[in-house]
Protein backbone atom coordinates (compact mmCIF):
# COMPACT_ATOMS: atom_id res chain seq x y z
CA UNK A 1 0.00 0.00 0.00
CA UNK A 2 1.18 3.50 -0.72
CA UNK A 3 1.78 6.16 1.86
CA UNK A 4 -1.36 8.01 0.82
CA UNK A 5 -3.50 4.91 1.32
CA UNK A 6 -2.09 4.56 4.84
CA UNK A 7 -2.80 8.17 5.64
CA UNK A 8 -6.33 7.87 4.29
CA UNK A 9 -7.07 4.74 6.30
CA UNK A 10 -5.58 6.24 9.46
CA UNK A 11 -7.59 9.45 9.17
CA UNK A 12 -10.80 7.56 8.47
CA UNK A 13 -10.15 5.18 11.39
CA UNK A 14 -9.54 8.11 13.74
CA UNK A 15 -12.76 9.72 12.54
CA UNK A 16 -14.62 6.50 13.31
CA UNK A 17 -13.14 5.95 16.76
CA UNK A 18 -12.52 9.34 18.36
CA UNK A 19 -16.06 10.83 18.33
CA UNK A 20 -17.72 7.90 20.18
CA UNK A 21 -14.85 7.92 22.68
CA UNK A 22 -15.48 11.61 23.33
CA UNK A 23 -19.17 10.86 23.71
CA UNK A 24 -18.64 8.08 26.24
CA UNK A 25 -16.19 10.17 28.22
CA UNK A 26 -18.78 12.87 28.67
CA UNK A 27 -17.80 15.23 25.85
CA UNK A 28 -20.97 14.89 23.80
CA UNK A 29 -20.22 18.23 22.23
CA UNK A 30 -17.31 16.81 20.26
CA UNK A 31 -19.50 14.07 18.85
CA UNK A 32 -21.83 16.75 17.50
CA UNK A 33 -18.88 18.54 16.00
CA UNK A 34 -17.75 15.30 14.35
CA UNK A 35 -21.23 14.63 12.98
CA UNK A 36 -21.36 18.09 11.41
CA UNK A 37 -17.85 17.57 10.04
CA UNK A 38 -18.81 14.22 8.56
CA UNK A 39 -21.96 15.55 6.90
CA UNK A 40 -20.13 18.56 5.45
CA UNK A 41 -17.42 16.18 4.27
CA UNK A 42 -20.02 14.26 2.25
CA UNK A 43 -21.05 17.53 0.60
CA UNK A 44 -17.40 18.41 -0.02
CA UNK A 45 -16.69 14.98 -1.54
CA UNK A 46 -19.63 15.47 -3.88
CA UNK A 47 -18.38 18.91 -4.87
CA UNK A 48 -14.91 17.47 -5.43
CA UNK A 49 -16.31 15.22 -8.16
CA UNK A 50 -17.19 18.20 -10.36
CA UNK A 51 -14.78 20.80 -9.02
CA UNK A 52 -11.68 18.71 -8.44
CA UNK A 53 -11.98 16.02 -11.10
CA UNK A 54 -14.23 17.83 -13.55
CA UNK A 55 -12.69 21.29 -13.27
CA UNK A 56 -16.18 22.78 -13.05
CA UNK A 57 -16.03 25.66 -10.59
CA UNK A 58 -19.54 25.48 -9.17
CA UNK A 59 -20.30 28.23 -6.71
CA UNK A 60 -23.81 27.05 -5.97
CA UNK A 61 -23.40 23.73 -4.25
CA UNK A 62 -24.94 24.94 -0.99
CA UNK A 63 -28.28 25.11 -2.83
CA UNK A 64 -28.26 21.31 -3.06
CA UNK A 65 -27.41 21.07 0.62
CA UNK A 66 -30.34 23.33 1.48
CA UNK A 67 -32.78 21.65 -0.89
CA UNK A 68 -31.89 18.29 0.64
CA UNK A 69 -32.56 19.65 4.12
CA UNK A 70 -35.90 21.14 3.08
CA UNK A 71 -36.85 17.80 1.53
CA UNK A 72 -36.75 16.49 5.10
CA UNK A 73 -38.23 19.57 6.74
CA UNK A 74 -41.21 20.18 4.49
CA UNK A 75 -42.74 16.67 4.67
CA UNK A 76 -42.17 16.66 8.44
CA UNK A 77 -43.82 20.07 8.68
CA UNK A 78 -46.93 18.91 6.82
CA UNK A 79 -47.05 15.68 8.78
CA UNK A 80 -47.27 17.68 11.97
CA UNK A 81 -49.36 20.66 10.87
CA UNK A 82 -51.45 19.24 8.02
CA UNK A 83 -51.81 20.39 4.47
CA UNK A 84 -50.29 18.84 1.32
CA UNK A 85 -51.25 15.31 2.38
CA UNK A 86 -49.37 13.74 -0.48
CA UNK A 87 -46.16 15.14 0.90
CA UNK A 88 -46.73 14.68 4.62
CA UNK A 89 -44.50 11.97 6.03
CA UNK A 90 -41.72 11.25 8.47
CA UNK A 91 -40.62 8.15 6.59
CA UNK A 92 -36.87 8.51 6.16
CA UNK A 93 -36.75 6.59 2.88
CA UNK A 94 -39.33 8.89 1.33
CA UNK A 95 -37.64 12.02 2.68
CA UNK A 96 -34.15 11.02 1.62
CA UNK A 97 -35.46 9.77 -1.71
CA UNK A 98 -37.14 13.12 -2.18
CA UNK A 99 -33.94 14.96 -1.26
CA UNK A 100 -31.93 12.99 -3.81
CA UNK A 101 -34.58 13.25 -6.51
CA UNK A 102 -35.14 16.98 -6.10
CA UNK A 103 -31.47 17.89 -6.05
CA UNK A 104 -30.81 15.62 -9.03
CA UNK A 105 -33.60 17.36 -10.90
CA UNK A 106 -32.35 20.79 -9.84
CA UNK A 107 -28.84 19.87 -10.98
CA UNK A 108 -30.19 18.52 -14.25
CA UNK A 109 -32.18 21.64 -15.09
CA UNK A 110 -29.65 24.24 -13.96
CA UNK A 111 -26.71 22.15 -15.17
CA UNK A 112 -28.25 21.96 -18.64
CA UNK A 113 -28.07 25.77 -18.77
CA UNK A 114 -24.85 26.34 -16.79
CA UNK A 115 -22.80 23.82 -18.73
CA UNK A 116 -23.44 25.65 -21.96
CA UNK A 117 -21.23 28.37 -20.55
CA UNK A 118 -17.53 28.43 -19.74
CA UNK A 119 -15.16 29.92 -17.24
CA UNK A 120 -16.33 32.90 -15.30
CA UNK A 121 -19.84 32.68 -16.75
CA UNK A 122 -20.13 29.24 -15.23
CA UNK A 123 -18.99 30.44 -11.81
CA UNK A 124 -21.43 33.32 -11.76
CA UNK A 125 -24.40 31.48 -13.15
CA UNK A 126 -24.11 28.58 -10.70
CA UNK A 127 -23.96 31.20 -7.97
CA UNK A 128 -27.03 32.95 -9.36
CA UNK A 129 -29.09 29.77 -9.56
CA UNK A 130 -28.26 28.97 -5.95
CA UNK A 131 -29.36 32.46 -5.00
CA UNK A 132 -32.57 31.86 -6.91
CA UNK A 133 -33.36 28.89 -4.68
CA UNK A 134 -32.45 30.99 -1.68
CA UNK A 135 -34.96 33.68 -2.62
CA UNK A 136 -37.54 31.08 -3.54
CA UNK A 137 -37.44 29.58 -0.04
CA UNK A 138 -37.40 33.05 1.52
CA UNK A 139 -40.57 33.91 -0.39
CA UNK A 140 -42.55 30.90 0.85
CA UNK A 141 -44.05 31.98 4.16
CA UNK A 142 -45.60 28.60 4.86
CA UNK A 143 -42.10 27.21 5.47
CA UNK A 144 -40.94 30.08 7.61
CA UNK A 145 -39.40 32.21 4.88
CA UNK A 146 -36.40 34.06 6.20
CA UNK A 147 -36.90 32.75 9.72
CA UNK A 148 -36.40 29.14 8.78
CA UNK A 149 -38.18 26.00 9.77
CA UNK A 150 -37.87 23.80 12.85
CA UNK A 151 -37.85 20.06 12.11
CA UNK A 152 -39.83 18.67 15.00
CA UNK A 153 -39.42 15.01 14.16
CA UNK A 154 -36.36 13.48 12.59
CA UNK A 155 -36.57 11.04 9.70
CA UNK A 156 -37.75 7.60 10.72
CA UNK A 157 -35.64 4.74 9.44
CA UNK A 158 -36.19 1.10 10.42
CA UNK A 159 -33.60 -0.01 12.95
CA UNK A 160 -32.22 3.49 13.32
CA UNK A 161 -33.08 6.11 15.88
CA UNK A 162 -31.68 9.37 14.59
CA UNK A 163 -32.56 11.10 17.87
CA UNK A 164 -29.64 9.16 19.32
CA UNK A 165 -26.57 11.28 18.51
CA UNK A 166 -24.37 8.19 18.31
CA UNK A 167 -26.61 6.51 15.75
CA UNK A 168 -26.87 9.70 13.73
CA UNK A 169 -23.08 9.93 13.69
CA UNK A 170 -22.81 6.28 12.67
CA UNK A 171 -25.19 6.84 9.76
CA UNK A 172 -23.28 9.93 8.65
CA UNK A 173 -19.94 8.15 8.95
CA UNK A 174 -21.01 5.07 7.01
CA UNK A 175 -22.56 7.37 4.39
CA UNK A 176 -19.30 9.27 4.08
CA UNK A 177 -17.29 6.09 3.56
CA UNK A 178 -19.75 4.81 0.98
CA UNK A 179 -19.82 8.15 -0.84
CA UNK A 180 -16.02 8.31 -0.88
CA UNK A 181 -15.86 4.82 -2.38
CA UNK A 182 -18.58 5.62 -4.91
CA UNK A 183 -16.86 8.82 -6.05
CA UNK A 184 -13.52 7.04 -6.20
CA UNK A 185 -14.99 4.27 -8.34
CA UNK A 186 -16.63 6.77 -10.67
CA UNK A 187 -13.42 8.76 -10.99
CA UNK A 188 -11.40 5.69 -11.94
CA UNK A 189 -13.99 4.37 -14.39
CA UNK A 190 -14.15 5.14 -18.09
CA UNK A 191 -16.65 7.85 -17.27
CA UNK A 192 -14.26 9.38 -14.77
CA UNK A 193 -11.39 9.32 -17.27
CA UNK A 194 -13.54 11.27 -19.73
CA UNK A 195 -14.47 13.77 -17.01
CA UNK A 196 -10.82 14.31 -16.09
CA UNK A 197 -9.74 14.41 -19.70
CA UNK A 198 -12.26 17.16 -20.39
CA UNK A 199 -10.85 19.13 -17.48
CA UNK A 200 -7.37 18.84 -18.96
CA UNK A 201 -8.27 19.57 -22.57
CA UNK A 202 -11.86 19.97 -23.66
CA UNK A 203 -11.16 20.50 -27.35
CA UNK A 204 -9.11 17.33 -27.55
CA UNK A 205 -11.87 15.29 -25.93
CA UNK A 206 -14.52 16.65 -28.28
CA UNK A 207 -12.34 15.93 -31.29
CA UNK A 208 -11.89 12.37 -30.06
CA UNK A 209 -15.66 12.03 -30.24
CA UNK A 210 -16.76 12.55 -26.65
CA UNK A 211 -19.89 14.58 -26.10
CA UNK A 212 -18.24 16.41 -23.22
CA UNK A 213 -21.39 18.36 -22.38
CA UNK A 214 -23.34 15.19 -21.68
CA UNK A 215 -20.62 13.63 -19.51
CA UNK A 216 -20.33 16.80 -17.47
CA UNK A 217 -24.07 17.04 -17.06
CA UNK A 218 -24.23 13.49 -15.71
CA UNK A 219 -21.39 14.24 -13.28
CA UNK A 220 -23.16 17.43 -12.25
CA UNK A 221 -26.36 15.52 -11.52
CA UNK A 222 -24.55 12.80 -9.55
CA UNK A 223 -22.74 15.43 -7.54
CA UNK A 224 -25.94 17.36 -6.85
CA UNK A 225 -27.80 14.24 -5.77
CA UNK A 226 -25.06 13.21 -3.33
CA UNK A 227 -25.05 16.71 -1.92
CA UNK A 228 -28.83 16.53 -1.57
CA UNK A 229 -28.36 13.38 0.49
CA UNK A 230 -25.88 15.24 2.68
CA UNK A 231 -28.48 17.99 3.03
CA UNK A 232 -31.07 15.48 4.25
CA UNK A 233 -28.60 14.33 6.92
CA UNK A 234 -27.80 17.93 7.82
CA UNK A 235 -31.49 18.70 8.31
CA UNK A 236 -31.76 15.73 10.65
CA UNK A 237 -28.69 16.86 12.49
CA UNK A 238 -29.49 20.53 13.03
CA UNK A 239 -33.30 20.07 13.20
CA UNK A 240 -33.48 23.69 12.21
CA UNK A 241 -33.20 24.74 8.61
CA UNK A 242 -33.25 28.15 7.01
CA UNK A 243 -32.46 29.72 3.65
CA UNK A 244 -29.19 30.82 5.22
CA UNK A 245 -27.94 27.25 4.61
CA UNK A 246 -27.96 28.08 0.90
CA UNK A 247 -26.31 31.45 1.15
CA UNK A 248 -23.47 31.76 -1.31
CA UNK A 249 -21.08 32.10 1.59
CA UNK A 250 -21.91 28.45 2.39
CA UNK A 251 -21.08 27.50 -1.20
CA UNK A 252 -17.81 29.37 -0.82
CA UNK A 253 -17.03 27.44 2.34
CA UNK A 254 -17.63 24.13 0.59
CA UNK A 255 -15.24 25.18 -2.17
CA UNK A 256 -12.75 26.22 0.44
CA UNK A 257 -12.94 22.75 2.05
CA UNK A 258 -12.22 21.04 -1.26
CA UNK A 259 -9.36 23.34 -2.21
CA UNK A 260 -7.82 23.55 1.25
CA UNK A 261 -7.93 19.77 1.66
CA UNK A 262 -6.68 19.07 -1.82
CA UNK A 263 -8.86 18.97 -4.94
CA UNK A 264 -9.03 15.77 -6.98
CA UNK A 265 -7.95 13.55 -4.09
CA UNK A 266 -9.99 10.99 -2.17
CA UNK A 267 -9.22 12.22 1.31
CA UNK A 268 -8.74 15.94 0.56
CA UNK A 269 -12.36 17.06 1.03
CA UNK A 270 -12.52 15.25 4.37
CA UNK A 271 -9.34 16.92 5.60
CA UNK A 272 -10.65 20.24 4.32
CA UNK A 273 -13.94 19.86 6.17
CA UNK A 274 -12.07 18.90 9.32
CA UNK A 275 -9.81 21.94 9.01
CA UNK A 276 -12.83 24.16 8.41
CA UNK A 277 -14.74 22.84 11.42
CA UNK A 278 -11.70 23.14 13.67
CA UNK A 279 -11.04 26.71 12.51
CA UNK A 280 -14.65 27.74 12.84
CA UNK A 281 -14.96 26.21 16.27
CA UNK A 282 -11.73 27.33 17.84
CA UNK A 283 -11.30 30.70 16.17
CA UNK A 284 -14.97 31.31 16.92
CA UNK A 285 -14.33 30.57 20.56
CA UNK A 286 -11.45 33.04 20.72
CA UNK A 287 -13.21 35.97 19.13
CA UNK A 288 -16.52 36.89 17.58
CA UNK A 289 -14.40 38.41 14.83
CA UNK A 290 -13.13 34.99 13.76
CA UNK A 291 -14.01 35.67 10.13
CA UNK A 292 -11.06 38.08 10.00
CA UNK A 293 -8.28 35.56 10.64
CA UNK A 294 -10.28 32.99 8.69
CA UNK A 295 -10.54 35.27 5.67
CA UNK A 296 -6.86 36.19 5.87
CA UNK A 297 -5.99 32.53 6.06
CA UNK A 298 -8.10 31.79 3.02
CA UNK A 299 -6.29 34.48 1.06
CA UNK A 300 -2.96 33.16 2.33
CA UNK A 301 -3.80 29.60 1.29
CA UNK A 302 -4.69 30.74 -2.22
CA UNK A 303 -1.59 32.90 -2.55
CA UNK A 304 0.98 30.59 -1.03
CA UNK A 305 -0.17 26.96 -0.65
CA UNK A 306 -0.61 24.96 -3.84
CA UNK A 307 -2.26 21.54 -3.75
CA UNK A 308 -3.86 21.97 -0.33
CA UNK A 309 -3.25 19.83 2.74
CA UNK A 310 -2.89 16.69 0.65
CA UNK A 311 -0.10 18.42 -1.24
CA UNK A 312 1.68 19.07 2.06
CA UNK A 313 1.14 15.46 3.22
CA UNK A 314 2.59 14.15 0.02
CA UNK A 315 5.66 16.17 0.83
CA UNK A 316 5.92 17.52 -2.68
CA UNK A 317 6.16 14.06 -4.23
CA UNK A 318 3.75 13.01 -6.92
Amino acid sequence: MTRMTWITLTVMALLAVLPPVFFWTGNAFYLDLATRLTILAIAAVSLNLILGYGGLVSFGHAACLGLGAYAVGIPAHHWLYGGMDALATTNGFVQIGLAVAITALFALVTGAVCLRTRGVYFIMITMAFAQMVYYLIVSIEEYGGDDGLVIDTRSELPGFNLDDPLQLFALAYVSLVVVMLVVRTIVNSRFGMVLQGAKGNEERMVTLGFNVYLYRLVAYVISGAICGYAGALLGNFTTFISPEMMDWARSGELMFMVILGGAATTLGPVLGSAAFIVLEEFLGRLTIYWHLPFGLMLIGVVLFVRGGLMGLLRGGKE
Partner: protein
Amino acid sequence: MDLSLFVIQFLNGLQLGLLLFLVASGLTLVFGILDFVNLAHGALYMLGAFVCAWLTQVLGNFLLAVLLALPVTAVAGLLVERFIARPLYARDHLDHVLATFGLILVIDTLVHLVFGPEGIAVPLPDFLNGQIRLTETLVIPSFRLMIIGAGLAAAAGLYWMVTHTRLGMLIRAGASNRTMVSALGVDIERLFALVFALGAALAGLAGMLIAPITEASIGMGNNIIITAFVVIIVGGIGSMKGAFIAALMIGLIDTLGRSYLDDLFKLVMSQDAAETSAPAISAMLIYIIMAVVLALRPQGLFPPKAR
Protein backbone atom coordinates in the same frame (compact mmCIF):
# COMPACT_ATOMS: atom_id res chain seq x y z
CA MET B 1 -54.27 49.95 -12.90
CA ASP B 2 -53.28 52.95 -10.84
CA LEU B 3 -51.16 55.10 -13.12
CA SER B 4 -49.37 57.13 -10.47
CA LEU B 5 -48.45 53.97 -8.59
CA PHE B 6 -47.08 52.58 -11.80
CA VAL B 7 -44.98 55.70 -12.39
CA ILE B 8 -43.55 55.42 -8.89
CA GLN B 9 -42.76 51.74 -9.35
CA PHE B 10 -41.23 52.51 -12.70
CA LEU B 11 -38.98 55.14 -11.16
CA ASN B 12 -38.06 52.72 -8.38
CA GLY B 13 -37.12 50.16 -11.00
CA LEU B 14 -35.09 52.75 -12.87
CA GLN B 15 -33.32 53.70 -9.66
CA LEU B 16 -32.47 50.06 -8.87
CA GLY B 17 -31.33 49.59 -12.45
CA LEU B 18 -28.97 52.55 -12.31
CA LEU B 19 -27.49 51.46 -8.98
CA LEU B 20 -27.01 48.01 -10.43
CA PHE B 21 -25.30 49.58 -13.39
CA LEU B 22 -22.83 51.42 -11.15
CA VAL B 23 -21.91 48.16 -9.44
CA ALA B 24 -21.98 46.05 -12.61
CA SER B 25 -19.97 48.52 -14.68
CA GLY B 26 -17.05 48.23 -12.26
CA LEU B 27 -17.30 44.44 -12.29
CA THR B 28 -17.45 44.22 -16.04
CA LEU B 29 -14.59 46.73 -16.38
CA VAL B 30 -12.35 44.76 -14.05
CA PHE B 31 -13.24 41.49 -15.69
CA GLY B 32 -13.14 42.79 -19.24
CA ILE B 33 -9.71 44.33 -19.01
CA LEU B 34 -8.01 42.48 -16.16
CA ASP B 35 -9.66 39.09 -16.62
CA PHE B 36 -10.07 39.09 -12.86
CA VAL B 37 -13.16 37.87 -11.02
CA ASN B 38 -13.73 40.08 -8.00
CA LEU B 39 -16.34 38.69 -5.63
CA ALA B 40 -15.34 41.36 -3.13
CA HIS B 41 -16.71 44.06 -5.40
CA GLY B 42 -19.85 44.09 -3.25
CA ALA B 43 -17.69 44.60 -0.17
CA LEU B 44 -16.33 47.78 -1.75
CA TYR B 45 -19.92 48.91 -2.29
CA MET B 46 -20.55 48.35 1.42
CA LEU B 47 -17.31 50.09 2.33
CA GLY B 48 -18.40 53.14 0.33
CA ALA B 49 -21.69 53.21 2.20
CA PHE B 50 -20.05 52.98 5.63
CA VAL B 51 -17.32 55.52 4.99
CA CYS B 52 -19.87 57.95 3.58
CA ALA B 53 -22.27 57.34 6.48
CA TRP B 54 -19.54 57.93 9.03
CA LEU B 55 -18.29 61.07 7.28
CA THR B 56 -21.84 62.39 7.07
CA GLN B 57 -22.18 62.01 10.81
CA VAL B 58 -18.80 63.64 11.47
CA LEU B 59 -19.09 66.47 8.97
CA GLY B 60 -22.83 66.88 9.01
CA ASN B 61 -22.87 67.19 5.25
CA PHE B 62 -23.87 64.34 2.97
CA LEU B 63 -22.57 65.78 -0.28
CA LEU B 64 -19.17 66.61 1.20
CA ALA B 65 -19.06 63.09 2.65
CA VAL B 66 -19.67 61.60 -0.79
CA LEU B 67 -16.89 63.71 -2.28
CA LEU B 68 -14.45 62.54 0.40
CA ALA B 69 -15.59 58.91 0.46
CA LEU B 70 -15.08 58.48 -3.29
CA PRO B 71 -11.27 58.74 -3.15
CA VAL B 72 -11.27 56.56 -0.04
CA THR B 73 -12.99 53.69 -1.85
CA ALA B 74 -10.72 54.23 -4.85
CA VAL B 75 -7.71 53.84 -2.55
CA ALA B 76 -9.27 50.72 -1.05
CA GLY B 77 -9.55 49.44 -4.61
CA LEU B 78 -5.88 50.23 -5.21
CA LEU B 79 -4.86 48.29 -2.10
CA VAL B 80 -6.95 45.27 -3.11
CA GLU B 81 -5.43 45.41 -6.57
CA ARG B 82 -1.87 45.66 -5.32
CA PHE B 83 -1.93 42.98 -2.64
CA ILE B 84 -4.53 40.45 -3.77
CA ALA B 85 -5.46 40.85 -7.41
CA ARG B 86 -2.02 41.49 -8.89
CA PRO B 87 -0.37 38.30 -7.61
CA LEU B 88 -3.33 36.34 -8.95
CA TYR B 89 -3.73 37.71 -12.50
CA ALA B 90 -1.79 34.80 -13.94
CA ARG B 91 -3.78 32.22 -11.97
CA ASP B 92 -7.12 30.70 -12.88
CA HIS B 93 -10.53 32.04 -11.97
CA LEU B 94 -10.95 29.56 -9.15
CA ASP B 95 -8.09 31.20 -7.27
CA HIS B 96 -9.59 34.65 -7.87
CA VAL B 97 -12.90 33.49 -6.51
CA LEU B 98 -11.45 31.90 -3.38
CA ALA B 99 -9.14 34.77 -2.52
CA THR B 100 -11.77 37.45 -3.00
CA PHE B 101 -14.24 35.33 -1.04
CA GLY B 102 -11.72 35.48 1.81
CA LEU B 103 -11.43 39.20 1.23
CA ILE B 104 -15.18 39.64 1.71
CA LEU B 105 -14.93 38.01 5.13
CA VAL B 106 -12.00 40.28 5.98
CA ILE B 107 -13.69 43.51 4.87
CA ASP B 108 -17.02 42.57 6.46
CA THR B 109 -15.32 41.85 9.77
CA LEU B 110 -13.15 44.96 9.63
CA VAL B 111 -16.22 47.10 9.05
CA HIS B 112 -17.86 45.31 11.94
CA LEU B 113 -14.83 46.06 14.14
CA VAL B 114 -14.55 49.70 13.16
CA PHE B 115 -18.16 50.78 12.81
CA GLY B 116 -19.88 48.28 15.10
CA PRO B 117 -22.50 45.66 14.30
CA GLU B 118 -25.38 48.08 13.85
CA GLY B 119 -26.13 49.80 10.58
CA ILE B 120 -25.52 53.54 10.30
CA ALA B 121 -28.35 55.74 9.11
CA VAL B 122 -27.45 58.61 6.81
CA PRO B 123 -29.36 61.86 7.32
CA LEU B 124 -29.97 63.85 4.18
CA PRO B 125 -29.66 67.61 3.86
CA ASP B 126 -33.02 69.35 3.72
CA PHE B 127 -32.92 70.19 0.06
CA LEU B 128 -32.62 66.50 -0.77
CA ASN B 129 -35.03 65.30 1.84
CA GLY B 130 -38.14 66.87 0.37
CA GLN B 131 -40.66 65.52 -2.02
CA ILE B 132 -41.63 66.65 -5.42
CA ARG B 133 -45.29 66.72 -6.25
CA LEU B 134 -45.68 65.89 -9.90
CA THR B 135 -49.47 65.64 -10.00
CA GLU B 136 -52.30 65.54 -7.50
CA THR B 137 -51.57 61.94 -6.51
CA LEU B 138 -47.99 61.57 -7.63
CA VAL B 139 -45.34 62.42 -5.06
CA ILE B 140 -41.70 61.48 -5.48
CA PRO B 141 -38.93 61.86 -2.89
CA SER B 142 -36.42 64.26 -4.39
CA PHE B 143 -33.50 62.09 -3.29
CA ARG B 144 -34.70 59.27 -5.51
CA LEU B 145 -34.64 61.65 -8.43
CA MET B 146 -31.12 62.58 -7.43
CA ILE B 147 -30.07 58.91 -7.47
CA ILE B 148 -31.52 58.57 -10.94
CA GLY B 149 -29.79 61.78 -12.00
CA ALA B 150 -26.45 60.71 -10.52
CA GLY B 151 -26.76 57.25 -12.06
CA LEU B 152 -27.47 58.69 -15.48
CA ALA B 153 -24.60 61.15 -15.10
CA ALA B 154 -22.21 58.34 -14.20
CA ALA B 155 -23.45 56.31 -17.14
CA ALA B 156 -22.91 59.28 -19.44
CA GLY B 157 -19.43 59.79 -18.01
CA LEU B 158 -18.57 56.14 -18.59
CA TYR B 159 -19.98 56.35 -22.09
CA TRP B 160 -17.76 59.30 -22.81
CA MET B 161 -14.79 57.46 -21.37
CA VAL B 162 -15.45 54.37 -23.43
CA THR B 163 -15.92 56.25 -26.68
CA HIS B 164 -13.41 59.09 -26.33
CA THR B 165 -10.42 58.02 -24.28
CA ARG B 166 -7.48 55.69 -24.66
CA LEU B 167 -8.74 53.59 -21.76
CA GLY B 168 -12.08 53.35 -23.50
CA MET B 169 -10.39 52.21 -26.66
CA LEU B 170 -8.83 49.35 -24.74
CA ILE B 171 -12.18 48.45 -23.25
CA ARG B 172 -13.85 48.43 -26.61
CA ALA B 173 -11.12 46.23 -27.98
CA GLY B 174 -12.10 43.76 -25.29
CA ALA B 175 -8.48 43.82 -24.34
CA SER B 176 -8.22 41.07 -21.80
CA ASN B 177 -5.16 40.05 -23.71
CA ARG B 178 -2.05 41.27 -21.97
CA THR B 179 0.29 41.01 -24.93
CA MET B 180 -2.03 43.03 -27.07
CA VAL B 181 -2.38 45.77 -24.49
CA SER B 182 1.35 46.01 -23.96
CA ALA B 183 1.86 46.03 -27.71
CA LEU B 184 -0.12 49.26 -27.70
CA GLY B 185 2.54 50.74 -25.49
CA VAL B 186 0.51 50.99 -22.31
CA ASP B 187 1.99 50.69 -18.83
CA ILE B 188 -0.01 47.64 -17.83
CA GLU B 189 0.50 47.82 -14.10
CA ARG B 190 -0.71 51.39 -13.96
CA LEU B 191 -3.61 50.76 -16.29
CA PHE B 192 -4.78 47.79 -14.27
CA ALA B 193 -4.50 49.65 -10.96
CA LEU B 194 -6.42 52.56 -12.47
CA VAL B 195 -9.19 50.35 -13.76
CA PHE B 196 -9.48 48.62 -10.41
CA ALA B 197 -9.66 51.91 -8.53
CA LEU B 198 -12.27 53.22 -10.94
CA GLY B 199 -14.38 50.10 -10.49
CA ALA B 200 -14.09 50.40 -6.71
CA ALA B 201 -15.11 54.05 -6.79
CA LEU B 202 -18.15 53.25 -8.94
CA ALA B 203 -19.26 50.50 -6.56
CA GLY B 204 -18.58 52.81 -3.61
CA LEU B 205 -20.68 55.53 -5.21
CA ALA B 206 -23.59 53.14 -5.56
CA GLY B 207 -23.25 52.25 -1.87
CA MET B 208 -23.18 55.94 -0.90
CA LEU B 209 -26.29 56.68 -2.93
CA ILE B 210 -28.30 53.83 -1.44
CA ALA B 211 -27.15 54.41 2.15
CA PRO B 212 -29.60 57.27 2.94
CA ILE B 213 -32.48 54.98 1.93
CA THR B 214 -31.46 51.64 3.42
CA GLU B 215 -28.72 52.79 5.81
CA ALA B 216 -25.24 51.32 5.68
CA SER B 217 -25.28 47.75 6.95
CA ILE B 218 -22.94 44.78 7.03
CA GLY B 219 -23.65 42.28 4.31
CA MET B 220 -25.44 44.80 2.10
CA GLY B 221 -22.87 44.18 -0.61
CA ASN B 222 -23.46 40.46 -0.65
CA ASN B 223 -27.05 40.92 -1.77
CA ILE B 224 -26.37 43.26 -4.64
CA ILE B 225 -23.30 41.50 -5.98
CA ILE B 226 -25.22 38.46 -7.18
CA THR B 227 -27.77 40.63 -8.93
CA ALA B 228 -24.87 42.53 -10.48
CA PHE B 229 -23.51 39.16 -11.68
CA VAL B 230 -26.86 38.43 -13.28
CA VAL B 231 -26.65 41.83 -14.96
CA ILE B 232 -23.24 41.29 -16.49
CA ILE B 233 -24.03 37.71 -17.48
CA VAL B 234 -27.17 38.86 -19.28
CA GLY B 235 -25.41 41.88 -20.77
CA GLY B 236 -22.29 39.99 -21.83
CA ILE B 237 -19.24 40.07 -19.60
CA GLY B 238 -16.91 42.92 -20.50
CA SER B 239 -19.51 44.94 -22.39
CA MET B 240 -20.34 48.38 -20.99
CA LYS B 241 -23.35 48.79 -23.25
CA GLY B 242 -24.59 45.34 -22.26
CA ALA B 243 -24.17 46.18 -18.58
CA PHE B 244 -26.22 49.35 -18.98
CA ILE B 245 -29.09 47.80 -20.89
CA ALA B 246 -29.17 44.66 -18.75
CA ALA B 247 -29.01 46.69 -15.52
CA LEU B 248 -32.05 48.76 -16.46
CA MET B 249 -33.83 45.67 -17.70
CA ILE B 250 -33.15 43.69 -14.52
CA GLY B 251 -33.95 46.66 -12.27
CA LEU B 252 -37.28 47.28 -13.95
CA ILE B 253 -38.28 43.63 -14.27
CA ASP B 254 -37.42 42.90 -10.65
CA THR B 255 -39.28 45.92 -9.26
CA LEU B 256 -42.32 45.70 -11.53
CA GLY B 257 -42.45 41.92 -11.19
CA ARG B 258 -42.75 42.19 -7.43
CA SER B 259 -45.57 44.73 -7.76
CA TYR B 260 -47.58 43.46 -10.67
CA LEU B 261 -46.91 39.77 -11.15
CA ASP B 262 -49.87 38.75 -8.97
CA ASP B 263 -52.20 40.98 -11.00
CA LEU B 264 -50.84 39.40 -14.15
CA PHE B 265 -51.29 35.91 -12.77
CA LYS B 266 -54.85 36.64 -11.74
CA LEU B 267 -55.70 36.98 -15.42
CA VAL B 268 -54.89 33.33 -16.01
CA MET B 269 -55.41 31.62 -12.66
CA SER B 270 -57.48 31.79 -9.51
CA GLN B 271 -56.96 34.55 -6.97
CA ASP B 272 -55.56 32.11 -4.41
CA ALA B 273 -53.15 30.44 -6.79
CA ALA B 274 -51.94 33.82 -8.02
CA GLU B 275 -51.35 35.14 -4.55
CA THR B 276 -49.33 32.11 -3.47
CA SER B 277 -47.29 31.66 -6.62
CA ALA B 278 -46.60 35.28 -7.53
CA PRO B 279 -44.15 36.05 -4.68
CA ALA B 280 -42.20 32.86 -5.38
CA ILE B 281 -42.04 33.47 -9.11
CA SER B 282 -41.19 37.16 -8.77
CA ALA B 283 -38.33 36.24 -6.41
CA MET B 284 -36.97 33.99 -9.12
CA LEU B 285 -37.88 36.17 -12.08
CA ILE B 286 -34.50 37.68 -12.87
CA TYR B 287 -32.81 34.28 -12.60
CA ILE B 288 -35.35 32.77 -14.94
CA ILE B 289 -34.66 35.59 -17.38
CA MET B 290 -30.94 34.98 -17.03
CA ALA B 291 -31.44 31.28 -17.79
CA VAL B 292 -33.52 32.06 -20.86
CA VAL B 293 -30.98 34.58 -22.16
CA LEU B 294 -28.13 32.15 -21.63
CA ALA B 295 -30.00 29.28 -23.21
CA LEU B 296 -30.40 31.40 -26.33
CA ARG B 297 -27.10 33.30 -26.19
CA PRO B 298 -24.48 31.68 -23.95
CA GLN B 299 -22.28 34.77 -24.26
CA GLY B 300 -24.99 37.20 -23.15
CA LEU B 301 -26.86 39.82 -25.14
CA PHE B 302 -23.85 41.92 -26.14
CA PRO B 303 -20.74 39.75 -26.11
CA PRO B 304 -17.61 41.86 -26.59
CA LYS B 305 -16.21 41.13 -30.03
CA ALA B 306 -12.49 40.55 -29.86
CA ARG B 307 -12.12 37.83 -27.28
